[in-house]
Every structure is written in structure tokens, then in C-alpha cells.
């Protein structure tokens, strides 16, 4: 028996995108120890540079089509992983861009913030690369634990700490199920590698299918599918808004990567599919209906976007089910495209909230936006673009994302599911348009003293983020070719063309 696991230089080079981020995080912590006064903005820059390096590395590997395994097959860097590296790094960059001013206004601009983000992202990148159950679990926890801390980052704020506590308790609860599922799977198959798992189904189906269910429950919790969604609104509302941005994008996209890989590689054989697919269809319907319906009655924007993100998980589940059923990489590519657009439009919507958040009070209620269209036409126009895209109005990206997913679902014969999806997305128009109505058409309740909108959260970072997302939502909606081509490259590595 060899002594432990030998780690070679090639292995480390292979996981460069994740490693780079982890090292940057450690550097930030050290810098903060040595130069506590100057480290804040510097760490923001270091974070951005590190994310950028991983981003370009991922993009480069994606276009060059690199597909290798490392660490004895525990990590596989294939185009699918690279695509998620790109999406997650982009999402995190957007979240980091929105943070500095917000934190400074609240006197909690600490370098640890960036270190935590970096650690979490490095976990996410490994998450999408994992080909082995233990690796998967480690990556999941590396991703999650910093996020629990981040939610409580404005520690003087009781909502923030309460949210963190709830999130943590529920997260631990879900993790328990998942670890148990991992153990059962290992027990049935005698191996942790995804590719070996189907063996377990033949030898001891009882263990295997229970394990599969429990592991999937862990994922469904992370993507906030109904009924495992309860933590989402509370955590989104309580967390500092830049952290909410981070959670709604990166922390949302990463579990999808792991789940898609697991579903296709380990649970992609027909008996397993017959079991999990009906359940997933039911969950997708529940998720879309409950998410959109409860969002209707929300008055707080962050909470509303929380429910909306639950609903969007439902749409993505539809896409996943359709691509497994069709066994088509094109369909899977549409899921990736949807995630990409979702990241852009959601980041933008939260960005506007950050732009107008005051020192002592966040601008979160929909009523706070009344009159924005008249006072700050540019900001209102941007917000209009994001909300219209979230609703799915052409020619914005959100429309085409939904359009591709739904058309593949119809091709897969899931017409009833698509009907539910479209009806619920009509429902969603109601609460998204509420924002536009508030901005442009509602009169302030006290006409003598209309709300003053000061750009208290203004920073160059944030403006850059808003411009990029607004541009992206429009541009990649009208010209979806580049992201779609890349997404097809990525999807083809997971579902080879027949």
C-alpha cells in the first residue's frame, strides 16, 4: 500500500484556478496581520486579480478543450468544469465589486471578508470538478462554511446574525443527510468514484437508492428547492446585501454544477433516472409554484428576490430534467446559458439596492423606490432592464434563457411541465413589474417631501458592475452566440454527442 496519496506538481497545476484563490485568500489574511491599516482596498484588488486569473484560466482551458483527471481521478478538469469556473468567477467578481463601499459605510470593511469569499469560491471550483464522493463533500463544505460567516458579517446587526444562525443550523441539518447518503453509497458500491457508483445499484439496490436520495436532498437544499427552501428568504434578507448578491449567484450556481455532474455521471443509468426524474419533475413544479406565489405578497425586495431565486431554481430544474431526458448536450448548454444570464441580471438588481442603501438603513422595501424614475432616471432605467430580464421580456437575456430551456423541455415531451413553468412565469411578471410601477408610475405618499435618492453606496466598482451587467443582459440577449457556443463545448464533455 502506498503511503498516503502522492501529490504531484501536475495535480497542483491541474487545480490551479482553485488553488490560486486559496493562496490569495491566505495572502490577504497575512497582509492583514502585518499591515492592518492598509489592507482593505488592497485586498479587494488582490481578490479581483485572483478571480480574474482563475476566470481567464478557465476560459482558456474551455476554449482549448482541456480534459484531464488529477489526484487519482478524484478531480476531473473537463470543459464542463471550466465553464462553471468561468460562471462562478464572474459571479463572484460581480459580488466583490459591490462590496467595498457598502461595508465601509457600516464600519465593517475587513480584509477577512475577501479572504472568506476567496475560500468559498475555491471550494466551488473544486465542487464542479469533483469526481469522487469525499472530494465532493469536502468541496461542498469548503464552499459553505465561509458563507455562514459572511452572512453574519455585519455582526452588530441582529438580523444578520440571526440569519447566519438559521442558515447554519439548517445547513448542518442538510449536511447530515448528505453525509449519510455518501456513506450509504460508498457502502453499496465499495468505491467513492462517480463512475463506479452504478455498480452499487446492482449489488445492493436498497442501500444505493436510499443513499442517492439523501445525497440529492443535500443538493436540493443548497439550490433551495421546495420543500428544502425555508432558509433562503431569511438568509437573503438578513445577510448584508453584497453577501446576498454572492449567495444568489455564485452559491447558487455551484451546487447546480455538482448536481448536474452527479446526476449524469453517477445516476445517469436508466433505472436510477426512472426513479429520480418523476420526483424532480414534482419538485420543479412545487418550486416554481411556491416560489412565485409567495413572492407575490412580499414587500421587501431582498426577500422577494429570494423567492424569485427559488422560482428560478425551478426553471433550471426543468432544463436539467429535459437535458437528461433528451440526452442532449444542446439542452444542457441552454441550462448553462440560463445560469450565466441569471448571474448577470440578479447581480444588477442587488447592485441597485446597494447603490441606494444608506448608512443606517438599507433601501430594501419596494416602497422605497417610489419616484426613482423621476429622480434618478439612469438608475431606474438600469433597474428596469434587470427586472424586465428577470421577467423574461425579449430581447433581453432572461427571455432567451427561458425560451431555450422551455423549447428543449417541449422537445423532451414535458409539455405539462412547461405549461406550469410559463403560467408561473406570467405570475412572476406581477411582482417584477411592481418594482417598475413603483419606480415610474406611483406618486409618493407624501408629495411635499418625495424620497431623496442619494448615491450613498456609490463607488467606481459598483458602477462598473452595473454597467457591465446591464450591457451583458442586453448584448448577450441579442447576440447569444458566443456564450451558447462555449456552453455547448462544455455540455458536450458531459453528454457526448450521439
Amino acid at each position, binding site marked *: 500500500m502506498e503511503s498516503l496519496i502522492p501529490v504531484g506538481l501536475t495535480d497542483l497545476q491541474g487545480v490551479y484556478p482553485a488553488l490560486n484563490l486559496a493562496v490569495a485568500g491566505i495572502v490577504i489574511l497575512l497582509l492583514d496581520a502585518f499591515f492592518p491599516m492598509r489592507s482593505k482596498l488592497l485586498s479587494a484588488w488582490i481578490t479581483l486579480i485572483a478571480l480574474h486569473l482563475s476566470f481567464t484560466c478557465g476560459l482558456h482551458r474551455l476554449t482549448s478543450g482541456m480534459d484531464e483527471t488529477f489526484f487519482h481521478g478524484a478531480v476531473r478538469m473537463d470543459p464542463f468544469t471550466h465553464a462553471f469556473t468561468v460562471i462562478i468567477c464572474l459571479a463572484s467578481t460581480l459580488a466583490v465589486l459591490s462590496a467595498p463601499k457598502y461595508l465601509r459605510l457600516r464600519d465593517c470593511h475587513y480584509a477577512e471578508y475577501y479572504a472568506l469569499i476567496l475560500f468559498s469560491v475555491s471550494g466551488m471550483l473544486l465542487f464542479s470538478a469533483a469526481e469522487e464522493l469525499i472530494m465532493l463533500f469536502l468541496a461542498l463544505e469548503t464552499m459553505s462554511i465561509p458563507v455562514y460567516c459572511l452572512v453574519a458579517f455585519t455582526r452588530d446587526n441582529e438580523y444578520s446574525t440571526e440569519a447566519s444562525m438559521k442558515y447554519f443550523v*439548517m445547513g448542518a441539518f442538510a449536511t447530515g443527510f448528505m453525509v449519510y447518503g455518501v456513506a450509504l453509497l460508498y457502502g453499496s458500491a465499495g468505491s467513492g468514484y462517480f463512475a463506479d457508483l452504478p455498480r452499487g445499484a446492482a449489488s445492493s*439496490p436498497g442501500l444505493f437508492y436510499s443513499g442517492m436520495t439523501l445525497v440529492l436532498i443535500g443538493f436540493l437544499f443548497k439550490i433551495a428547492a421546495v420543500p428544502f427552501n425555508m432558509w433562503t428568504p*431569511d438568509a437573503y434578507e438578513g445577510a448584508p446585501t453584497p453577501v446576498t448578491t454572492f449567495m444568489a449567484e455564485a452559491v447558487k450556481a455551484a451546487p447546480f454544477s455538482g448536481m448536474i455532474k452527479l446526476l449524469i455521471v453517477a445516476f445517469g443509468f436508466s433505472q436510477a433516472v426512472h426513479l429520480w426524474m418523476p420526483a424532480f419533475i414534482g419538485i420543479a413544479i412545487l418550486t416554481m409554484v411556491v416560489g412565485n406565489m409567495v413572492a407575490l405578497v412580499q414587500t421587501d425586495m431582498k426577500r422577494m428576490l429570494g423567492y424569485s431565486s427559488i422560482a428560478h431554481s425551478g426553471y433550471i430544474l426543468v432544463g436539467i430534467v429535459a437535458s437528461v431526458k433528451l440526452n442532449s448536450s444542446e439542452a444542457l448548454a441552454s441550462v448553462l446559458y440560463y445560469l450565466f444570464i441569471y448571474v448577470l441580471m440578479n447581480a444588477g438588481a442587488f447592485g441597485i439596492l446597494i447603490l441606494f442603501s444608506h448608512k443606517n438603513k438599507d433601501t430594501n422595501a419596494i416602497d422605497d423606490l417610489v419616484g426613482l424614475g423621476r429622480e434618478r432616471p439612469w438608475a431606474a432605467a438600469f433597474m428596469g432592464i434587470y427586472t424586465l430580464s428577470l421577467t423574461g421580456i425579449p430581447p433581453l437575456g432572461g427571455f432567451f434563457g427561458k425560451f431555450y430551456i422551455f423549447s428543449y423541455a417541449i422537445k423532451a415531451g414535458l409539455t405539462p411541465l412547461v405549461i406550469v413553468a410559463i403560467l408561473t412565469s406570467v405570475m412572476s411578471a406581477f411582482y417584477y413589474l411592481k418594482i417598475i410601477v413603483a419606480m415610474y408610475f406611483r406618486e409618493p405618499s407624501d408629495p411635499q417631501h418625495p424620497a431623496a435618492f442619494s448615491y450613498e453606496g456609490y463607488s467606481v466598482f459598483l458602477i462598473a458592475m452595473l454597467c457591465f451587467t446591464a450591457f451583458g443582459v442586453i448584448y448577450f440577449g441579442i447576440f447569444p452566440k458566443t456564450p451558447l457556443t462555449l456552453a455547448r463545448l462544455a455540455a458536450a464533455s458531459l453528454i457526448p454527442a450521439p
Partner: protein
Amino acid sequence: MILLRYIILAPIAALLLNLLFGRFWSKTTTAFLACGAVFVSFAAAANNCVYMIRKLAVPEMQTIFDPVFSWISVGRVQVPVDLVFDPLSCVMCLIITGVGFLIHVYSVGYMSHDPGFRRFFIYLNLFIAFMLILVLADNLALLFVGWEGVGLCSYLLIGFWHTDMKNASAGKKAFVVNRVGDLGFLLGMLLILAVFGTLSVTDLRELISTAASAMTPASTAVATTICLLLFVGATGKSAQIPLYVWLPDAMAGPTPVSALIHAATMVTAGVYMIARLHFLYALSPVASAVVAAIGAATALFAAVIGLAQNDIKKVLAYSTISQLGYMFLAVGVGAYTFGIFHLTTHAFFKALLFLGSGSVIHAMSGEQDMQRMGGLRRYMPVTYWTFLVGTLAIAGIWPLSGFFSKDEILLSARLASTPVLSGAALFAIGLCAAFLTAFYMGRLFTLTFFGNSRASEETKHHIHESPWTMGGPLILLAVLAAGAGFGLRQFENFLSPIFGHPEEAPHEIKLAIMAVSLLAGITGLALSLYVYLRRPDIPRKISTSASLLCDCIANKFYIDELYEKTVVRLVYIAGIVSHAFDKHVVDRAVNWTGGGLRFGGFMLSFFQSGNVGTYAVWFLIGVLALLHAMGGVHPPPAP
């Protein structure tokens, strides 16, 4: 050669800049950008025109084509955004951008004190852009975009001073009446699509030239239907009977708008459209005859109403309707070249007349009633002389441009024979209209510039000649209106690749008609001069002795009231009924659905208690349900 899209892009760029950043810079910059952009378009169009004449000696090659992008692609229906620049669109482009530029410059002076200065120029640039899309479009669908776009701009500009209810409702009227016409246009377009499978004018032309030999009565009927439907659209946009009623009211807009949109460019879109589709109209003699008859009738009818108007702009408005009638008469009898030629000269002299009247109104502190003017000759020499040129041109006095274009139309009408009205009848109507035109223009001119001033002392004190930004365009337009007639032969040659060379008429008929039409013009002018200068008692006597007729004319034959009592009332009743249905059936259904969903959301949100224990319970329920569903409890048998 310059790519055609840049002709359109210049005004769009200027209007976007002014719209987004206009409040950061001064009025001067706004004006400079707006005017500059139109001039850039003009220069680009002129450049292309020269290129076309010089480089492409082969007549068949005289088109420049610019495929911009594919717009709609559904099944076999393809609607690309293709721009085409042939002699016809060249003429239109030059008029739109050339006259448009002069009017832009004029507006800088005219609107200088208006608080809506920036908005005005944004609308004007938008109009120019849409108008250029209309004339450059190769595809009828794209043409329709421009068609609707100019309608929108017209609406916005008529109601420019929208705080006054009268202006706002005039804009609304224009918009609504145009919708009626647009419906016809749309139906015609869809019928073309159904019959030919394409909306591209170039393709249509080829299809029809190959199919023309195999015409059956049925296909002639189809062609007639299409042409008549399209003509309904043209009567709306170009203010012909029965849809002309909006144009006089449209004078509520600022005067440069009346000059640009409601005289020189937009209202001629109908004529342009028929000329563009002349090969289609050639298939249907009946439709062409209807066009000619309606045109002739409108020319006469509007001229009669023009006799009894006292508002200076209203007279010019009815005169525009009447002149548009001439153009339709020309295209109806197949004299497309002369129709377009009259369109061109009319653009010059009518823009000149409107701008001149604007100058007068500006000087009279907003007074528009001719009864309170008079004697302005002394105060405003530039306006006076240029206005004189315009009046002589429209009255058809040799050697001004109006004479040439009107004379050719009358000649073509005389020689034509249509299934509806004979050539002689058309000619007689046209001649009467020409006489009346000269008469009411003489009346307008006399009342405004000659005699003693009838204005109040207060107003009199303010009378002044207009600034150079207004005077300059007047002079330039006067030169064009005076001299354009001599370009007739070159114009014919230029347009011959599209319309062919018109047949040469017998010499004696030509001379006779020239003499008659000149005589009509001169008598008209002379009579009005005599009556209103020497014997002002005559009109008064006529109005008392034939008061019923005069009332009738002055009230525009009560057409507005007739429409109000019939069409509008019917539509209004239909509106009340549908409103009731909407309110009590549709709305309730929607509200109940929405209310039900909200209630559902409200109930569901109770699960979100905020208590972690509750969450865990739901989580567990979910786990159990899934375990049950996914066979963890009942594993499937091994295969």
C-alpha cells in the same frame, strides 16, 4: 459612395445624444447637433446621388443596395432590413434632408424662446430618421415602420404644446384618422404577402414583370383590391377625400412642423408609395382611375374651402390638400414623373409659404387671423419678397416652378382616358382648381401684405423682420421655388430608369394648355387683387346675398360634423359597450385570478414562520416523501 445606413444613422445619433445628454449642454449645442446631423444626411445623400449619376452610366445599374440585417425570418416569410437608393428614393432623400435642413435652421430662430427647445429638435430628428427609413426601404414592412414612425412624430409635434387641450386633441385626431388609413395599408400589405409571398419591392417588380403577360380577370381583380387598399392608406397619410379632415387641424403644431411634415415631406408619403409601386398600379386601370378621380376631386374641393378661411395657416393647409390632389391626379393618370416633380416643386414653394407665414405669425406675436393683418410689406421686406415668389409659384405663373409642374399634370390629364372619368373632365376640374388656387393665394397675399394694417397698436409695435436663421432659409427656398422648373427635362431623364420617358404630346395641344393654365393663374391672382384691394365690399355683398353657401364653405361643408355624427358616434357607442364588457367581465376575471393567487401566496407564506424547528419539520417531510418516491423504501427489483 456612402453606405445608406449612415444617411439614417446621423439623425438618430444626434437625437440620442440630445435625449440622453442634452440637459448637460446649451441650446446652441443642441441646435448645432440637430441641424448638423440633417446636413450630414443631406451631404451623404447628395454624395450618393452624384456617384449614381457619374459612375453608373448604365441606366439599369442605377441603384445602390445596402442589406443591413435580417429582421424577421419566420417560415417562408423573410423580412430583411434592406435599403435601396434609386433615382426615386434619391429625389425623396434630397428633399427630406435638404428642405429638412433648411427648416431645422429656421426652427432654431422660431423656437428660440420655447421651453421645449430640446424636445422639439429630438422629435424633428426622429421624424427625419423615420422619413428616411420610409423612402429608403426596399421592403414594404420596413416602409410601414417608417410610415407609422412619421405618423407618431406627426402626432407628437402637432400636440407639441400639449398643455393646450385644443392642440392635444388635434394631435389625437390626426393619429386616429391616420389609423383608419393605416388599416387599409396593412390589409393591402398582407394581401400582397399572401398573393406574392414577398414584401420586397424589388422582388415584386420582377415577379410582376414576368407575370404581366399572363393576367386573367381574376388576377386583375386581386391587383385592383390591393391597389385600392393601399390607396386607402395613402388617403389617410396624404390627406385626401375622405380622410383629409386631420390636416387642417394639424396646423395646431409649431409652424416649422407644418412646413416640414404637413407640407413638404410626410404628407407626400402616399404619393411616393404609389409611385414606388407604379408597376402594381399599372396592372389595374380601375384603381389608377380611382386614384386620379379622388385626386382631382380633392384638388377642387379643398381649393373651394380654402377660399373662405381666415386663418393664414388654414388656407395653406387646404392649399396643401389641394396640391396633393394634383399629385394623385398625376400618378393616377400614369404621369409618375410629373407627380414626383410636382411633389418636389411643391416641397419648395409650400415650405417657403409656411415658413413665410411662420415669420409673419412670429412678427405678429402669434396672430394668425388674416383679418387682423395687412400692410406687412413695409415692415418685413425679406418675408414679403420671398412670400411673393412662393405665391407666384403656387399660382402657376411662368417662369416659376409651379407653372411647369402643374402644366405637365394638366397636360397628362387631358391626354389620359380612364374608366372612371374622361381626360377632358379631369382636365377641367384641374383647371378650375388652378384658378381657385391662384385666387385664394392672391387673397391671402393681399390681406397679409397690402393695404393698411388692421392689427392692434400693441401688436403693431412689435412687428419686426425675423432673424437671419429664419430669413436665410426663406431666401434659399425662394431661389429653389423660382428656379426648379427649369430642371424639368433633366428630372425626366433622371427618373427615366424607373418610370420611362413620358410620351411627347402634340405641339398644338401643349401650347394651348400652357396658355390656358397660365391664363387661369393670372386671372385668379388679378381678380383677387382687384376684389380685395379695390372693392372690399364685393366679398361682403356676396356673403350676405349667398349667406347659406358662404356659411357652408366657411364651415368646411360641415364634413367634420358629419363624421362626428356618424362614424365617431358609432365608434363611441361601440367603445362604451366594450368598456362595459371589459370592466365587468374581463377585469373581474383578471382581478379574481390575481386575488386568488395573492391569497394563495399569503397562505403559503405562513409556513415561513421564522422558526428553525418548523423548517426542520418541513425538511423532514420532504425527505420522507422523496425517500418514498425514489424507492429508498421500496427498492426496485434488480434487472
